[in-house]
């Protein structure tokens, strides 16, 4: 029993004990109910959706038992979100996109956050996975070897596993040339290698048509809908069930990814990566095989992107090179940095947040401003909100980096690091003040 803590804010009491359980449950129930009763795509629903998602953050921060957190989170992810998705397809699509990018961000976080290797070409591995399924599941394969025929859609799951290994293989392949590079040089070379993959996708339509060039690959196969889902979800049409199915797959991959990176982080491998990030020379002097551990980081990071690439291709049914450009890599990096490098919860939050900003919040601001303009509010003609989405996004990043450079949910240790700098600056200031007075 603790008698020491005096609640310093009226909400402090809500953060622990029975009130925490009640408040948390109430929040989730209310936001879910509001959301489920407002299904029209609109600003209001957007706000409710975001408030609902905020529930995950509250669950994460609240001082309630882990079992309860897990149960509540599961109800939201497995119950509320899919149900809402059947009422409004736009939002389940958002959730799927968020899931895909969370997995990508977690993968990149292994390379950048854990091992400290700044990689600007990460989307290449996503592309490799996507093209893997794109090529083998369509007529594209006949272009490469005329006798072959597209693989059965049933083999989708096998190809997800293959995507893992092909991703890892390319991770090692692109990792090899940059082993000796650090910092800025590493960033530039990985950027170049990432672009090489994209340019290959554009140009490998001649002499043998492997990627179908700039036109991209169409009619990519989707895994067959399991029959039991139809039975399980009567009253839904096939496209709806299909979306839920893809959502479930994305959620599953994210779940496996989270578990994997969490376990790796708290193991001898994770510690070795961190040691390399902190001081390479000291790390090798402590018996850490530098080359092997760096390649392992590249391989693990890339493998998640490879798997997600396969799923992405099946979901989109169409892929072309611009999907995998540099901006995409930078977007994923922004998720990692915004959320908190090295921090798993932070990176998940960063992935969701950036996806929402990109696909929901910024476009919504643009449409709302457009509507205002039509109603006669004076907005200068040169200001087309739709054009300024990227600028707004950049501005947000800059503001974040100024006020919270360690990210929104920093790794516990990183937070101490950033605060230590503050403390030092503060003490430097007082010292300077004292010196002036003397």
């Amino acid at each position, binding site marked *: 029993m603790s008698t020491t803590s005096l609640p310093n804010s009226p909400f402090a009491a809500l953060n622990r004990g029975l009130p925490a359980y009640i408040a948390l449950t109430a929040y989730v129930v209310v936001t879910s109910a509001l959301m489920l009763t407002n299904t029209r795509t609109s600003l209001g629903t957007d706000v409710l959706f975001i408030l609902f998602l905020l529930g995950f953050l509250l669950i994460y921060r609240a001082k309630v038992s882990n079992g309860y957190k897990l149960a509540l989170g599961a109800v939201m992810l497995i119950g509320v979100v899919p149900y809402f998705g059947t009422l409004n397809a736009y939002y389940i699509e958002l959730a799927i996109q968020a899931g895909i990018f969370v997995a990508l961000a977690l993968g990149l976080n292994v390379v950048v956050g854990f091992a400290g290797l700044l990689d600007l070409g990460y989307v290449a591995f996503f592309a490799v996975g996507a093209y893997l399924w794109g090529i083998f599941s369509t007529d594209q394969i006949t272009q490469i070897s005329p006798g072959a025929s597209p693989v059965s859609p049933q083999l989708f799951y096998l190809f997800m596993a293959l995507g893992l290994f092909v991703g890892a293989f390319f991770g090692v392949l692109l990792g090899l040339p940059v082993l000796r590079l650090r910092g800025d040089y590493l960033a530039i070379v990985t950027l170049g290698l990432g672009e090489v993959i994209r340019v290959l996708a554009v140009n490998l339509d001649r002499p043998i048509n492997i990627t179908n060039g700039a036109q991209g690959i169409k009619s990519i196969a989707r895994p067959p809908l399991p029959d039991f889902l139809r039975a399980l979800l009567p009253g839904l049409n096939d496209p709806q069930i299909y979306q839920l199915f893809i959502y479930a797959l994305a959620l599953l991959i994210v779940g496996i990814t989270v578990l994997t990176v969490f376990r790796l982080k708290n193991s001898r491998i994770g510690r*070795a990566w961190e*040691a390399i990030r902190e001081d390479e020379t000291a790390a090798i002097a402590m018996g850490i095989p530098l080359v092997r551990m760096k390649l392992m980081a590249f391989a693990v990071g890339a493998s998640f992107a490879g798997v997600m690439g396969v799923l992405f291709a099946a979901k989109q049914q169409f892929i072309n090179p611009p999907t995998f450009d540099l901006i995409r890599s930078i977007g994923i990096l922004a998720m990692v940095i915004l959320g908190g490098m090295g921090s798993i919860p932070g990176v998940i939050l960063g992935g969701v947040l950036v996806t929402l900003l990109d696909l929901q919040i910024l476009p919504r601001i643009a449409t709302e401003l457009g509507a205002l303009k039509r109603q006669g509010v004076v907005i200068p003609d040169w200001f087309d909100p739709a054009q300024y989405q990227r600028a707004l996004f950049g501005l947000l990043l800059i503001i974040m980096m100024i006020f919270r450079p360690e990210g929104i949910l920093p790794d516990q240790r990183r937070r101490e690091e950033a605060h230590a700098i503050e403390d030092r600056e503060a003490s430097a200031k007082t010292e300077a003040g004292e010196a002036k007075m003397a």
Partner: protein
Amino acid sequence: MALLEAQNVTKSFGGLTAVNNVSLTVERGSIVSVIGPNGAGKTTFFNVLTGIYKPDHGSIIFDGASIAGQRPDQITQQGIARTFQNIRLFNNMTAIENVMVGMHARLNAKMWQIIFQSPSVRTEELRARARARELLKFVGLEGRYDELAKNLPYGDQRRLEIARALATEPKLILLDEPTAGMNPQETLEATRLIQRLRDELGLTVILIEHDMRVVMTISERISVLDYGEKIAEGKPEEIRANARVVEAYLGRGAAAGH
């Protein structure tokens, strides 16, 4: 047979021969010092022994096997650990994590076992953690386990570096100026700790040290480097009386005055 036998080791940087034809034999269970003026090549010699630099010439036999030209991590795995002149801890990791990094090569968990959390991985982690605490206790850092390395006071950082080196399970430990920057009390404690490395853990110790009181009290043998060359070797009393050594340290005039 001697634990370490370095023969005619040479290492140059461009025109500068930082280590010139140096030989050193270290017997098992001994404490040996390497001394010399600033820039004499002591640290470079350590860097060659631990594989950070490859020697231009010469052979290094450790525990019966040649290690010259091997990678630092391979050499560490064979049983040579070290500390750094300018402390090189993993600053943003905790004390216990720093030590556990040192155990890397002695732990066996494979990636798949870690991902599936096999029972062997879990017991190995628990054991490693317990062992790391023991090592921290041994160097006098009991209770500071979860402190970030960079938040530790200077003297404790030096201790932590030793604990981290011990975690690699070395036979030979190289200490580069372990008492640099310490006050007399801390120096005394550090000296005791170094003696305990040998007496309690049975390690062989080579240390680079500028504090002559430390050197003279704990070393069985001393080697003196000057401008990359070994100019003397012997017992502390012999070194104290060696004219060339006095000359190297104090200049020609002082030596002539004797």
